[in-house]
């Protein structure tokens, strides 16, 4: 656990020192409980200017609470929240209306009694009246809805409502925009499109954004960085590539994508398991250690081999790819993506190997191993 925590802080620090100056949003050891249920436990997270950070985790992991703490809709029990370098929760308290934080809600939360233009103008009341209309037109243009200014929310489609909500949140030029599962109320086809438009608008305005989602693909594709939350704790923060390729442990590995775990052994930099040699592990010379290896289905290759004792157990057709479940002789299973058109019937004996060039993740217990432990050195 401690190792996880240090990774977190490391990640956040790295992110916040890349020359952007003060982070747009910063949570430091933020803690919040509801009654006896701890929702967020000592979370450190920073979003720098212009950066999109996604927060992902299973339901009830505290990701929405994190957002509400940042917005000022909840008060932390401990820790600090800073917006643009200014402490807004902790020793002092700044209510949401004075935080300069924009928020987009899952249900879009448009004001049903105001038309689109007046929804967007709602946050602009401190702007001189003459400039309001201009700013409204500007942000509506940004989300491509200039022609809908006089519609009422109920006359809009779900996707349009979402874009109005985004425009409304961006209009007052907030320091950071918070998006709470902004696409989950849209159906799947629309989601990809609206997601792309949202990202475009965020980049165009150079907004810092914290996006909460429960969709792995969304988290990986949207975020410059992403934070994985579980039980109110940050399990890993990093670029999508880092989190997917080098998960901090078993939870992150299996939450961020399909993963199978096989008992394995490292001896003198050579990783072997039931299916044979997996790969070499640079830097693990003079090591002799039992580990587990994580294999993602795209790293697993299959070849029909009458002599093999591994058998295809089940085949799932996904269209472009076909997922094969293979029962190994030991009883463990691994999954393998095969090209469209390759479909081995259940029962087919197959030889299993790892695609050359893969760098499988090693685990001891539930934590990933980045270097051989000293005790394992010979």
């Amino acid at each position: 656990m401690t190792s996880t925590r240090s990774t977190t802080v490391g990640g956040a620090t790295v992110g916040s020192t890349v020359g952007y100056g003060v982070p747009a949003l910063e949570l430091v050891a933020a803690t919040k409980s509801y009654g006896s249920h701890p929702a967020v436990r000592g979370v450190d997270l920073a979003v720098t200017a212009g950066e999109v950070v996604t927060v992902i985790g299973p339901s009830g992991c505290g990701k929405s609470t994190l957002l509400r703490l940042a917005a000022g809709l909840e008060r932390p029990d401990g820790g600090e929240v800073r917006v643009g370098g200014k402490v807004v929760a902790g020793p002092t308290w700044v209510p949401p209306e004075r935080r300069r934080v924009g928020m987009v809600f899952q249900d879009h939360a448009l004001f049903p009694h105001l038309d689109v233009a007046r929804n967007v103008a709602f946050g602009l009341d401190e702007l001189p009246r003459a400039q309001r209309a201009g700013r409204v037109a500007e942000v509506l243009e940004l989300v491509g809805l200039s022609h809908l200014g006089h519609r009422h929310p109920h006359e809009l489609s779900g996707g349009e409502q979402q874009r109005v909500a985004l425009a409304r949140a961006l209009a007052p030029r907030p320091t950071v925009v918070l998006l709470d599962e902004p696409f989950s109320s849209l159906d799947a086809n629309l989601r990809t499109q609206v997601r792309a438009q949202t990202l475009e608008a965020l980049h165009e305005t150079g907004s810092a954004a914290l996006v909460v989602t429960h969709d792995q693909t969304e988290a990986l594709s949207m975020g410059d960085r992403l934070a994985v939350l579980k039980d109110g704790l940050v399990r890993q923060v990093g670029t999508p590539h880092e989190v997917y390729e080098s998960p901090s442990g078993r939870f992150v590995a299996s939450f961020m994508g399909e993963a199978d775990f096989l008992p394995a052994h490292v001896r003198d930099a050579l990783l072997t398991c039931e299916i044979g040699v997996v790969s070499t592990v640079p830097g693990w010379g003079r090591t002799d250690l039992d580990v587990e290896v994580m294999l993602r289905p795209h790293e697993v290759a299959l070849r029909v081999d009458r002599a093999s004792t591994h058998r295809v157990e089940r085949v799932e057709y996904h269209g472009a790819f076909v997922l094969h479940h293979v029962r190994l002789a030991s009883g463990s299973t691994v999954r393998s993506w095969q090209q469209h058109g390759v479909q081995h019937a259940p029962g087919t004996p197959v030889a299993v190997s790892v695609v050359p060039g893969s760098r499988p993740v090693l685990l001891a217990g539930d934590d990933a191993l980045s270097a051989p432990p000293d005790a394992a050195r010979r």
Partner: protein
Amino acid sequence: MTALARGAGRPGWSAAVVLIALLVASPVLAVAGYALGQGGLRMPGGVASMVGTTLALLLLVAAGTALLGTGLAWLVTAYEFPLRWALSWLLVLPLAMPAYILGFVFLSTFDYAGPVQGALRSVLGDDLGALPVRSLGGAAVVLVLTLYPYVYLLTRAAFLELAPTAYDAARTLGASRARAFRSVLLPLARPSLAAGLALVTMEVLTDFATVQYFNVRTVSVGVYLTWKGTYDVGSAISLAVLVLVFAVAVLAAERALRGRARYHQKGGRGRGLERRRLTGWRAGAATAVGLGVVGAAFALPVLRLVTWALSAIGDDGAAVVDDRFLDNLTSSLVVAAIAALVCVLVSLTISHALRLGGGRLVRGAAQVTTFGYAVPGAVVGIGVLAVFAGADRALVALGFENGTGLLATGSVLGILVAYVVRFTAPAYQAVEASFSRVSPSVSASAMTLGAGPGRLLRSVHLPLARPGVAVAATLVLIDAVKELPLVLMLRPFGFTTLSVWVYELASENFWERAALPALLIVLVAVVPVVLTFRATGTRAEVDPAATGATAPAALSGSLPAAPGQVSTTLTLDRGGADGPGRMEP
């Protein structure tokens, strides 16, 4: 206020809610405090007989309304007969007839000098003797006729909305129609029956005007007479404590009768029980029973009032609509309007403060304000007096020679406070019903867009809660115009409302002159009754399949704990009746 609220959290708004709760609870606290505190209870003479009378009256009215209410509800849901549909809503109308109006019409009709006894005498001879009309029984009949709609409405809603699926299930399991009714529908309706009876008994406890026509001395009458006769606050409060004990006992009984049953069966999709078509004399009898009840409780009394009013106007129109009439009407309307305004403001404050994220304290305080409706009028009245007396003493002790002066007894302030105590509950429920349709994220959006509590209320909550506010204001206005006991108890010298005037004229047998103002009150009171009924399952009955969307979940889904809440549940339905639906896509 805003400056305060903009600080850490929203302490200003939270404090306001706590203050409101304290205000609403103050009469009960004063009465209870007196009971526990200083001098102990000083019961005036005749308490034992008052308690006995109260108990007898409560039991009689409860039994009568249970029988009449449930029976009629069953009749119109289980059978098909001529005029059934019309009767199903006509039977609610007596709710609009205040007991103090039906009471004098009843007396004028059945008393010794009235047409009924007169006719009897002319047929049977003079030695018939006087029928015991001015009696406990007479009072019970009048109260049953005005209060049974509570039970009727609630049990009918239960039959219509809780029952369909359960009934269908019972039938598929082989139960006969009769057995399904006995062993499924009645038990399902029991919580509704309990809630209805609690409402009825609370109303009986509150009344001390009607029963006086009948020379019935309940404990509430005792409170009033002791206060008005002797200005002996100690004795009056002691009796009010007794009333409070009765009220608590009623609530306890309601809980016991409801048991642990809380049926949540929203929008059952069953076909429901098929109405059996009655034929021949049975059909005629069913129609006759329904018409008889509506006639006795509403139509005939209204007809009699109209006749009286017409004859009074015919005699001398100017004398009927004279200055006093206009004065009293104005008094009624002004006090009612102020009460409506205050109750709406108070309700908005509570709902808004809850939205701003008040903690457990605020939620608890908001809950407290909904119990005011369940406190009997005599307790509220004497409690308000006690609170003002306490404030008076405190001010004198602080060096103000006149204390509150005539503030309590010399102005309508006491009445207004009592109205706020009593009517905040329905107003709040109506406003909250509108608020509950506003997603919390809408409020949160406004805040993150820079709207402080003040602007949030002005530009988001108020516009979105407007339907609820309108309903709340209407309800309080009507309740306040109808209200009699609180005004009788708290009115300053020379201040008369329409309801008090009707009561005074009726007490002195000036029935013809009382008729027009009485009709006016009935007319006003019909409005919420019609709204209520529209919301409690007319459409459900027409098309059972559409119930889910249109039927008020409040009545069927969760029957509330306290009578106050029940009546406010009705309110909530009225809230739904005229349309926040319009507001939303």
